[in-house]
């Protein structure tokens, strides 16, 4: 038990949490933007997966940053396709989202098989690249706190720092810029921005594209830092955990950040526990974020209901 305690409260574990949370956080921010514009994006899973594969395949031929951009573009493209069918073609956005997920699940394996010459499981035979880590070991030079700072701040992926920036950028965008106002208005009461001449469908389309782009980058991180290379179905539900994090975070960037970190912590635990306890039910630990999401969903709903009930209404 003490071993667990020391493991969890170690700098190394913190670094692990950052690593596991990064793909999740990026997707969560993507899900947040889409959700606030009124377009629930259930295709984050497929977008992450597609971003992961695209990044891996492109990285075989190009530098890592080009690969990341490719992953991002693949995700954004899926977002645009989603928007096309949901808004222009009036299909139900949930069904469109699942269609994208099915497309991604099959399409990635198909493309993988082609690229590896028949291997449908992993891309292990491909020389794909990794996203570099940011080395801040110069911080050790600072007196007293130096080594501690190094241990917790150095070695994170470039994309992790990017993700932190994204959180700030999303917050600033939503609450300090006019377009964020537009987006929130479109999500809450579309008739109002429409009457003001704001192109509602365009706003939602762009938000889905951004959502896909962020999920794509999250996928790139997953397949170029968390793991190096693509494995089929490697996202393992992260796209849906991201939706849970949006909900748990009360649909606010800071809340979503905390929720994503929390869920990342559970994923990290699931990795670490079997090393300490032979019989650790890693699967059940991996299931905890899903359980927490349901509990959060229920709690938020109860709170909303209780507020109504207190006033004796219907």
């Amino acid at each position, binding site marked *: 038990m003490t071993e667990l305690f020391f493991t969890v409260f170690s700098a190394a574990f913190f670094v692990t949490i950052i690593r596991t949370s990064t793909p999740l956080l990026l997707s969560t921010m993507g899900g947040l933007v889409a959700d606030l514009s009124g377009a629930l994006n259930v295709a984050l899973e497929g977008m992450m997966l597609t971003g992961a594969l695209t990044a891996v395949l492109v990285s075989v031929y190009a530098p890592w940053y080009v690969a990341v951009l490719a992953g991002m573009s693949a995700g954004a493209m899926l977002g645009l396709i989603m928007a096309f069918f949901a808004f222009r073609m009036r299909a139900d956005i949930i069904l469109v989202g699942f269609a994208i997920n099915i497309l991604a699940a099959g399409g990635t394996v198909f493309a993988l098989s082609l690229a590896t010459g028949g291997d449908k499981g992993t891309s292990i035979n491909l020389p794909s690249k990794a996203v570099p880590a940011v080395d801040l070991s110069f911080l050790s030079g600072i007196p007293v706190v130096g080594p501690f700072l190094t241990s917790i701040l150095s070695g994170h992926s470039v994309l992790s720092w990017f993700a932190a920036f994204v959180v700030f950028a999303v917050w600033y965008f939503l609450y300090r810029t006019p377009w964020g106002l*537009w987006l*929130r*208005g479109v999500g*809450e*009461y579309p008739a109002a921005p429409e009457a*003001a*001449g704001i192109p509602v469908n365009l706003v939602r389309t762009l938000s889905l594209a951004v959502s896909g782009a962020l999920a794509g980058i999250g996928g790139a991180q997953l397949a170029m830092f968390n793991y190096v290379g693509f494995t089929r179905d490697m996202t393992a539900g992260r796209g849906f955990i991201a939706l849970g994090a949006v909900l748990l975070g009360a649909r606010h960037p800071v809340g979503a950040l905390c929720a994503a970190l929390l869920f990342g912590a559970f994923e990290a635990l699931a990795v670490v526990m079997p090393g300490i306890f032979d019989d650790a039910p890693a699967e059940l630990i991996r299931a905890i974020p899903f359980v927490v999401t349901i509990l959060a969903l229920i709690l938020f709903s109860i709170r909303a209901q209780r507020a109504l009930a207190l006033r004796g209404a219907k």
Partner: protein
Amino acid sequence: MALLEAIGIGKTYPGGVVANDGVNLVIQPGEVHAVVGENGAGKSTLMKILFGLEQPNAGTLLLDGKSVHFAGPREAIEAGIGMVFQHFSLVPSFTVYENVVMGSEPRAGIRLDRRKAIAEVQALSDRFRLKVDPLPPVRSLPVGQQQRVEILKSLYRNARILILDEPTAVLAPQEVQELFVAIRSLVAQGKTVIFIAHKLPEVLEISDRITVMRQGKTVGSVKTSDVTEQSLAAMMVGREVSLRVDRKPTDQSQRVASVKGLRVVNARGTEVVAGLDLNVHAGEIVGLVGVEGNGQAETLEAIAGLRSIAGGEIEIASQSATGLSVLERRGLGLASIPEDRIAEGLATGASVAENLVATRLNDTRYVRNGLLDLKAIKANAQKLIERFSIRVGGPGYAVGTLSGGNMQKVVVARELSEQPKLLLVNQPTRGVDLGATQFIWRTITDARDAGTAVLLSSADLSELLALSDRLLVFYRGKIVAAFVNSPDLTPETLGTYMLGLSTQTPAEMQVALK
């Protein structure tokens, strides 16, 4: 030179509905111009075209003598046309200033300049006498103030022409007067106002000129000083409108339903019905008078069992109904025609037969042991289609394919097919053409003549005065006046009580409260 001219505007919707046919409109600068016509006359379509929400199939628009074409609201707004809809377009959680500036925000780089926005909104509010605080979230404001926010939206964008779509529909007469003050102020400062309306007294009071529309065409354009209410109505309908419905004398002694001390609280925690008593008897129509939102709709919903109550007792057919479910109350002989037929009264995707039997699924004539008797259901539908002259291809057709008037007939047919003991009616002829309106008025009166007790709520005072035996005036969730209907009773008298300008004493109400 005219400020805005519409010449020969034509608009046909896909599906064949001709909404506008050779419509002409001439708006002079600085005038208040009213556009009147009944529902379906084509007013809303014309306004949508002026505002760029719809594109005309034919005709031209001239602004300042130059031909213009608006592909969307943005262009209309840029040309100086602003529109205030009946259903407000305000984001509930946004503040007043956020709602006003959204889409044309003052910026400092990429940042939204909130301080400047607040200042500008405050300035506009002062200048045009539209008092409203820029800071609170819009959902916390009363309707009259929300409307001011809507007007400020147009003024913020330098609208020269303001189109107001039935602005007085949700206002009490006092608030209407405040609105008229604001309109006069706007005109005095150089704005032009187009005013779409149903309520002829208001039209005569505020407008300079009136254009009358009927069935998609313009009937004529007159100066307000040249017409009276009756001649206007005649222009609108094409024949003299009879405003009273013949009623048979009935025995109104037997009490069918009563409400004591009813209290209803809404979702925001406000008490919308505050301790109300009323009785209704067989063979009478009791009209519930009041501006929308004063508790009439909630009272009807509470009696129907669709809304839970915070206090009081309800009795139907001498039985306590307070704990009973909707189905159980219907079993006691309750029927109800809801306010919004598409949202509440019908399942547009289901067939006419299914709609007609939906409220009777515990009736053993149609359902036994959980199984449907399809033959009986279809026979019932055919019978009702004939009896109520519903124009439809057959009982198997989806209700959504019917016209508005016929849809309402389906609702009426369902509710009145078995002589109910108690009928609750809310806005029975809203959005219904004149022919169907007459039919529905007749049907309700016939039910009353045969002994049904009717509670009628309507925003249309003339409908209430035409149909009711007694009238109860609602204000802030209480009954403040009660009248026995007579030719001497005028809308003005009712209006005084509708705003709480006066209240009758219990003694005065006694007779009419029964």
